[in-house]
Each structure stands twice: as structure tokens, then as C-alpha cells.
């Protein structure tokens, strides 16, 4: 095996050789006063909880008596889901104890503006749909979501990245912990309006994916009516390569992280395809692949390997599974610092809820583990080829059963190549298994709300309100003589419009731009609640012959005074003079 290439070391043509395709699903919270389907305040972060509610999620069957794959996986985990409630931020609606209230019109108005900026084909009638989630992140077991338009585009550099659809939906819970069979959620964020923008898989390099995410973020911020800050915008990154499968890396909050994640995922898929080919060359076939498994607690009575010894002390069982044909494959590196074995470790952790580390040991691992004699005893029970790797897992008997089945399933999937998964982004740029990728089969109409007419008049009014798109702002900022970095910042921070209003009379547009970008951000970081930038227009203070160094102090005073409304233009000028020596 050749070593994994480092992120940043590849040219675009090398990604093209892989057949890399990246698509994004951008989730952007909208700046509304209230939530989408109830009248709870939006954007409130709770730190204390009044009550807890326990729920379970059960899959509902399709008309063929079959359960959606994700749903089945979540059911197998037998999770107890505990919701933490703060009565100031959640009501009976979010907790699935009351039907929805009419859709928040303020949220719809903002979403319509974004739809127009993305140039999607608008729908004539909004239908609220239920999208099932069984991980517990939504107490109802489904998210209410509605499509506003399809087939738009966003300019990224000299390309147009296609937008497949734009939806308006309610945000899910924040996960607080996931340990064993217990998963805990904070409900404050639940129900916050957000738009979901889905691009086509048009991006060919990790860099292009990041630029597209930036472009979409700038576009939504151009409305001035989207939420900002940690978690207010999250990207799902869909990655595939030729011969691979669409894999979703869910909920990436930071755009700069997207590139490395996509790069690593591309090579993880390449590695999985190489493993598939190796298995095929060993004449291991997917149909009827059998992995012998057995309960082996009794065989390891004297085992000194600490995790097994401790499991026995707790009265747990130990299970073993043999993977014929997988010799020397489990230790292949698929992501930086993560072997193929990690895929099995993840499945056992997520599906069987065995999350105490380590949760399994493999006969091919060097170092700590059971002794040779013990491995041999286990092998004898399992039968099968002597060179095949053996995995041991330990825990509650029911969980060990689930784990052994899950290991076999993952091995079978390896024979097909890349399983369709939702993966979670880890801090080091690698990913871990989160759940099976859900399909469109989990969508069905919400019978609680009637369709909402989106007639031409409504779309026309949205067009009148619509903010200038970022590319138009960029051109106008360039006319004022601003460089690309200042232009990018002004647009990304949503203050380009206010700046342009003021810049027409400004003797030094660049100096004013610095005030709107660097100074502004600095004061925000100091924790100052910055007033509406449009109010600064009335002040006219920051264009005088005062020295540049005084700008920051004057802006701080202006902000502390609550902006022009509280301050008055005269006072602002006076304040400006005061700090002027």
C-alpha cells in the first residue's frame, strides 16, 4: 500500500483521476424572533434545565413491511433518549405533545429572499413534509420541512454550481452526550427556523467545496437576516469517488475544515475499494459470506488482557468472530491514524452501544491483547482457516450479540466496497461512522398543516425586499477602490450594504471599510452589542479630519451609546472630538 497523500499536496488533476465529486447541504439558521412552528423564542441558549422527558424511537414500516435502513439501525441500538427542557425555550410543541402552530411567516419571508438569490424555480404551493429521524435528535421522530424551490445556481469563481433545492425546516436538538444506551439532548435549539440549501455534486476538488460553502454563506448573509455564531450554519459534505458511494459527512460547522475532511474521505473510499479488490482476488464473495462467531467467555477464564479480565469481573460475556479472507486487511490505514479495523470499532460503538474503550481486540494487532494460547483456543471453537483474523468483543450479552452481527454485516459491506453512511467529522479531519445513510423513503406528508399558497404576488414582494446578491455587492465595493480581502470581509459579515450607503460621501472609503470590518469585529469580540450599522449613516463622524488611530475609540463610544438613536449625531461628533487630541 502506498501511504496516504497529505491534504494540500495534490493537484486538481489528481482529484480528477479519482473521480472526486463533492456536494454540499448547507443548513443556515434564520434570524427570526420565534421558532418555525411554535411561538417559543428562537436563538436562546439554555444553560439550566427544568425537566427531563424520556422517549424511544420505533421504526415505522414501509408498505413492503420493510424498515428504512437507518431506522432499523437506530432501533437496533435500543437507545433511551433523554431530553433536557428549559421552559423558557421549549413548549409542548417541540416535545411532541401538541400539534404545530401555523408556519412562521417571518422565516418564510427570509427563506424566499434566499430562494430568489439562489435563482431557484419557485413552487406555487408549500407542502410541509415529515422527514424521519430516529436518532432522537427530534422528539417527534421526524423533522417538519418544506421545499421552496428547485434547480438554482450560485456563482463560484468562474463556475456556476447548481443548486438542487432549497428547503425551510426546523432545527434539531443539540446532543449533550451519547453513552451506552443513553443519549441526551438539549432542546433549546429545537424548532429554530433554518434553510437547507442542497447543491449538485458539482465540486471537483476540496478547495472548490470550501469556496462554494463560502459563496453560499456570503449569499445567505447578504440578506442580513440569518443567524451567526457557533452552530448557526452547518454543512453536510457529500463525497464520492469513481466506484465509491455517496458518503455524507454531517454537520461540519467550520468551512475551513471541509477541505481536509473531503480529501480524507476520498482516500478512505479509495482504500475501501482496494480492500474490496483484494477480497475479490482472494475469491471471497459477498453472497453467503459467513463469519463464524461464538460466545467464548469460558475459554478466557485466566486471560490477563485487562479489558477482558475486567469484563469478566463485571460478569459480562466475551464474544468472538472470525473473518475469513480478511487477513492483513484490518490493519490497513484508511485515514491518517485510522486502520480499516476502526470501521468495525465504530460500528460496535454506535450500534451495539459498547463504548468503553477499547471495545474490541483483533488477533492481528501487535502489543496488548490476549496471549497466543488464548487466541488458539478461541480459534479452535470458531473453526475456519487458521490465518483468518479473529475479533473479540465484551459487554452485556445482548450487546455482544448485536456487536457480532454488526461486525459480520460490516465485513459483508466491505465485499461490496463503500457503504452508504452518514459520518461524523472529527477534529483531526478524519471521520467516524455515525449512522446508515437515509434515503428519500423516509419522507411523507405532514397531515397537521394545510398547503400554503405561494402566489406570484408573494414572490414579487419578496423580490422587492431582496438584498443585493454578493457578486453585485462585490462589484460595487470594487468601484470604491477596496481590495479583495476587505470586500470579502464586508460581504461575509453582512455589512456591505450599510457601508455602501455611507461610502458615497466618505473622503477615505478604505478607512471607513476598516472601521466596518476589523474595528467592528474587535468590538464584537470585546462583547459589545453592536447596533444596526445602518444607524451609523446618521452620525457622519468617522470621515472627519481626525486621526485614524481615534476611529476605534469613537466607534466603541458610539456602540456603547446604543448607536445613533440613543446618541444623536451631535453627541457622536462631540465624542469623536473628545477622543481627538
Amino acid at each position, binding site marked *: 500500500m502506498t501511504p496516504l497523500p497529505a491534504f494540500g499536496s495534490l493537484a486538481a488533476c489528481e482529484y480528477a483521476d479519482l473521480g472526486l465529486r463533492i456536494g454540499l447541504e448547507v443548513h443556515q439558521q434564520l434570524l427570526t424572533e420565534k421558532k418555525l412552528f411554535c411561538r417559543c423564542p428562537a436563538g436562546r441558549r439554555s444553560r439550566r434545565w427544568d425537566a427531563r422527558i424520556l422517549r424511544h424511537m420505533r421504526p415505522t414500516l414501509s*408498505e413492503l413491511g420493510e424498515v428504512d435502513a437507518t431506522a432499523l439501525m437506530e432501533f437496533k441500538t435500543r437507545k433511551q433518549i433523554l431530553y433536557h427542557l428549559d421552559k423558557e425555550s421549549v413548549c409542548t410543541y417541540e416535545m411532541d*405533545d*401538541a400539534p404545530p402552530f401555523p408556519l412562521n411567516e417571518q422565516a418564510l419571508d427570509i427563506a424566499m429572499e434566499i430562494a430568489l438569490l439562489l435563482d431557484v424555480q419557485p413552487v406555487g*404551493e*408549500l407542502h410541509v*413534509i415529515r422527514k424521519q429521524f430516529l436518532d432522537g435528535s427530534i422528539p*417527534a421522530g421526524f423533522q417538519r420541512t*418544506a421545499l421552496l424551490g428547485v434547480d438554482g445556481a450560485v456563482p463560484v469563481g468562474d463556475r456556476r454550481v447548481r443548486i438542487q433545492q432549497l428547503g425551510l425546516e426546523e432545527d434539531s436538538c443539540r446532543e449533550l452526550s451519547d453513552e451506552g444506551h443513553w443519549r441526551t439532548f438539549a432542546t433549546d435549539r429545537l424548532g429554530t427556523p433554518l434553510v437547507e440549501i442542497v447543491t449538485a455534486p458539482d465540486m471537483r476538488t476540496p478547495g472548490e467545496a470550501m469556496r462554494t460553502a463560502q459563496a453560499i454563506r456570503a449569499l445567505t448573509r447578504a440578506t442580513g437576516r440569518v443567524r451567526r455564531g457557533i452552530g448557526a450554519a452547518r454543512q453536510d459534505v457529500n463525497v464520492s469517488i469513481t466506484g465509491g458511494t455517496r458518503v455524507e459527512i454531517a454537520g461540519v460547522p467550520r468551512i475551513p475544515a471541509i477541505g481536509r475532511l473531503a480529501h480524507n474521505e476520498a482516500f478512505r473510499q479509495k482504500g475501501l475499494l482496494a480492500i474490496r479488490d483484494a477480497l475479490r482476488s482472494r475469491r471471497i464473495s459477498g453472497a453467503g459470506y459467513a463469519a463464524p462467531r461464538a460466545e467464548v467467555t469460558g475459554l478466557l477464564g485466566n486471560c490477563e488482557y485487562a479489558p477482558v479480565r475486567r469484563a469478566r469481573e463485571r460478569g459480562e460475556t466475551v464474544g468472538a468472530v472470525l473473518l475469513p479472507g480478511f487477513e492483513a486487511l484490518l490493519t490497513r490505514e484508511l485515514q491518517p491514524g485510522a486502520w480499516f479495523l476502526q470501521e468495525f470499532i465504530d460500528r460496535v460503538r454506535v450500534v451495539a452501544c459498547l463504548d468503553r474503550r477499547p471495545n474490541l481486540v483483533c488477533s492481528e494487532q501487535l502489543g496488548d491483547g490476549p496471549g497466543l494460547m488464548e487466541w488458539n483456543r478461541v480459534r479452535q471453537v470458531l473453526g475456519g482457516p487458521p490465518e483468518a483474523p479473529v475479533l473479540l468483543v465484551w459487554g452485556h450479552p445482548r450487546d455482544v450479540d448485536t456487536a457480532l452481527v454488526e461486525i459480520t454485516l460490516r465485513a459483508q459491506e466491505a465485499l461490496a466496497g463503500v457503504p452508504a453512511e452518514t459520518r461524523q467529522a472529527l477534529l483531526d479531519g478524519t471521520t467516524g461512522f455515525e449512522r446508515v445513510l437515509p434515503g428519500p423513503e423516509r419522507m*411523507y406528508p405532514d397531515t397537521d398543516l394545510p398547503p400554503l*399558497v405561494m402566489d406570484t404576488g408573494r414572490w414579487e414582494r419578496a423580490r422587492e425586499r431582496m438584498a443585493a446578491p454578493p457578486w453585485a455587492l462585490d462589484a460595487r465595493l470594487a468601484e470604491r477602490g477596496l481590495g479583495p480581502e476587505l470586500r470579502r470581509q464586508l460581504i461575509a459579515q453582512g455589512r456591505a450594504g450599510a457601508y455602501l450607503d455611507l461610502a458615497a460621501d466618505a473622503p477615505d472609503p478604505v478607512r471607513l471599510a476598516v472601521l466596518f470590518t476589523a474595528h467592528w469585529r474587535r468590538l464584537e469580540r470585546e462583547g459589545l452589542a453592536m447596533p444596526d450599522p445602518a444607524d451609523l449613516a446618521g452620525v457622519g463622524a468617522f470621515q472627519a479630519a481626525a486621526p485614524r488611530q481615534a476611529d476605534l475609540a469613537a466607534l466603541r463610544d458610539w456602540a456603547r451609546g446604543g448607536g445613533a438613536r440613543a446618541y444623536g449625531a451631535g453627541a457622536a461628533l462631540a465624542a469623536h472630538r473628545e477622543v481627538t487630541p
Partner: protein
Amino acid sequence: MSEDCCQGYRGPGRELLERWRVGVWSEVRVETEHGAFTGIVLPRSETADDWHLVLKLASGYNIGLDVHAVRAIRELGRREAHYHIDERSFPRDPQKPFVKLFGTGGTIASRLDYRTGAVIPAFSPGELYGSVPELAELCNLETEQLYSVFSENMGPAQWIGTAEAVAAQIRAGADGIVIGHGTDTMHHTAAVLSFMLQKPPVPVVMVGSQRSSDRPSSDAPLNLFHATKAAAESDLAEVMVCMFGPTSDEYGLLHRGTRVRKMHASYRSTFRTLGDTPLAMVGREGVTPLRTTYHHRRFSTRGPENATESARVEALAEFHCVPCFDDRASLVYYYPGMKADVIDALVDSGYRGIILAGTGLGHVNRPVYPALKRARDAGVAVFMTVQTLWGFTQMYVYETGRAIMGMGVLPLANMLPEVAYMKLGWALGQTEDPEVVRRIMLEPVAGEITEREPHDGYLLYQGGLPEMDQFAMQHRK
């Protein structure tokens, strides 16, 4: 195009489908002024407007398109919906009790047609086994759909039919009965069945769901499991309602049929016992009685083999089914300022009995008095209950109460107004004699009047109080 092909479409919507020779379930490409959309034509709700076309897109989303903006429709194919539900046979085990499940409407369990979004009710034992396989751990299950009506459409014919069907099954030797019922009027049916089915030897458990069974968070499977467990295993031989105790997926409560009431429009834990404590808690592990005074099970197929038949005969000797109901009864919720004509109208329309839900201890205002006298003189039986729901009528305390009793109005102690209404219809169904009706009304049959109200029969905690916040944090809701 046949009627079916344009399911729910009227006016311009229907014309559009006919013009382009497409219909519901056609896979189409629709050219509009705003661009093209590809999807499957879905049926249109009959209550929706007539100028939108509904498409299901490949992404699973539904959208509506303004028919006036449509330029052309091309049919790409057809995707017929089929509503077949796969059945798995419910396992039989002679060691397990026999439970009969009756359906009256609503959905206890259901499956989704994801393509159309239709919710398909699952009811046969095989279908239920597919949705709630845990039921097979409890019992041998037989099912019978008696009615398919929303609970607000249950009426005398359905109550009598249900009582007779349950009685037949009890006589045939079932270990327990479960009745699936919409929740809105479940307490009405529970009350009337409590009167019609006297001294049942086995549990008769009514159950429903507050969250439709198509959603993963539905309370339906757990409610059904709890109710079946109570019917199969519990010692409580009464007509009961089994629904969630807290809103959490923790345990169910068994409420006596004559003391239970739906108290919240949408909460899972909406059913509460009023003026008393619930009979029992039911969880995965078993049924835990919360009180000692209840009617004990007198029959089980799992008893000693030689004793079974004689026990059955003995138990059935005490059991009576009295399936009567006269709907010339009414329930009047009194409000300040009520005029006599409200009562007069009922008397003039031939009603034979009236339940008043009065204020406080059982009061109505003076302008109604002449109507009460008139009702008495016309032979209409009038009874008083309290609209406070908790507490007893006491009509001696105030002059008003004494005056009202003087006009022939009989107080019904702490009988709940809806329960009193159901009992009145049942009593009127048995006799023409107002005196007998009065006697039946005052004689407790199934716990509808209790002798005493324990202090914890009325617990309405108020949110915001420090001790309540503490309680909520310590116990899951």
C-alpha cells in the same frame, strides 16, 4: 379519464390533468413559466383549492404547482400505489393467555406508503405482530374490527354493539379484552361500557394513542403493549382505560372507566383519574396495583386445568351484560346568564332526562328555575353534577341549592358530568318509569359515585412553584 385518475382534483386542476391525459400516479415532467419540475402526481386533498397540482419529487418532497403557470405536461411513466401490507402470522402458544382485541376505529398501528405518504392502518394480528412484535411475548391475540369510525362518531348503536361483542368473548372464555378506541370520547365509551358490562370476570381495557402510529415517537405501540399486558396478566377485572402515565415512555396507568377523563387536547398523559387515584401502573415488568379496592380477576385459562371450567361457570354467573341506551338524554353545561329557554327547548323536543353541570357545589341561576319546574312537571328527570369536575355536589349549603332540589333536581354526588350523561342514557334505555330512572342514577354501579375522596384524589400542581420545579427535576415528566 375515470373519476379515480384525478382523485381529489376539481375545476382547473382536473381540466389540466385531462387536457394532458395524465392522472394521479403518473410520473410527469411539468413545464411551467418558472421552469420544469419532474415528479409523481399525487392525489389532491378534497378540502384544498382547485388550482394546484401536487407532485412528489424524487427527493421525497411534495410541492404544489399553480396550474395557470403550467405550459405542458409529459407523462414519463406510471407508478401505481399499492396498499398491500405484509402479514406475519402471530405466533400461537397454548401456555399464554388468550386476548381478544376489538377495533372501533382510528389507528392503533399503521404503516406508511412512503411513495404516497398514505398511512395504512395495521390491525390484523399479523399486521400488529409486524409493528409491535413484543405482543407475542404476552398472549395469543385475536382481533376483530367492529367499526371504522372516528371516536366522535361513536354513538348508542356502537356502544351497544361493542358491549355485546365484548360480552360474547367473555362468555367464550377470553383471558382479557382490549378495545382500541379514538381518544376523544374514550372516557364516554369507557363509562357506558362500565354500566353495560357488569362484574366482568376478566379485565376489559380500552386503549388509544395521542400521537399517530405513523410517527417513530408514537405512544401507540407502548400503549397497546401496556393494555395487552393488563388484559392478559392483571388481576383487575374492571372496565378500564390504559394510557400513558407521564409524557415520557415510562409506564401506563389503568384508570377506572367511570372516573377517567381526557384532560388535555394533545398531551400523551391526557387521561387522568378524577377524584380518586388510578387503579394501577403498568410497565414492561408487570401491573402494580395502586390501591387495594378493586374487582379481582375471577377467571383465567391458565388456572388449574380441572378448575378452569367450573371457575368459568361461576364467574360468568355473576356477569351481566345490560346493553341499553336511550339517546333522549342531554348534558347542559351551565353558564352565568343562562336563560330558561335552553332547558325548555330540550323538554319541548321530547328529551326524557337532563344532566346539569352546575357551578360550585351544584348551582344554576334563578331565571332557569321555571324551566326546571316545567321539566319536572313534564316527567323529565333532571340531575345535578359539578362543572368543577373535582368534588361532590352539596345542595344544602346554600339557599340556591335547596331551591333547585325543591324543583326536583337530584344531586349526583361526585359523578363526573359525562359519566352521568352516559349513565342517564343507559338508565332511560332500561325503563319508562322516571322513578326507576332516579333510583338507577343514585345507586352506584361501577364506582361512578365514591363514598369518600382521598386527599390525593385532587392533585393539580402549579408550575413555577419552587417545590414543583424540584419535583419535575427529580422525576421525568
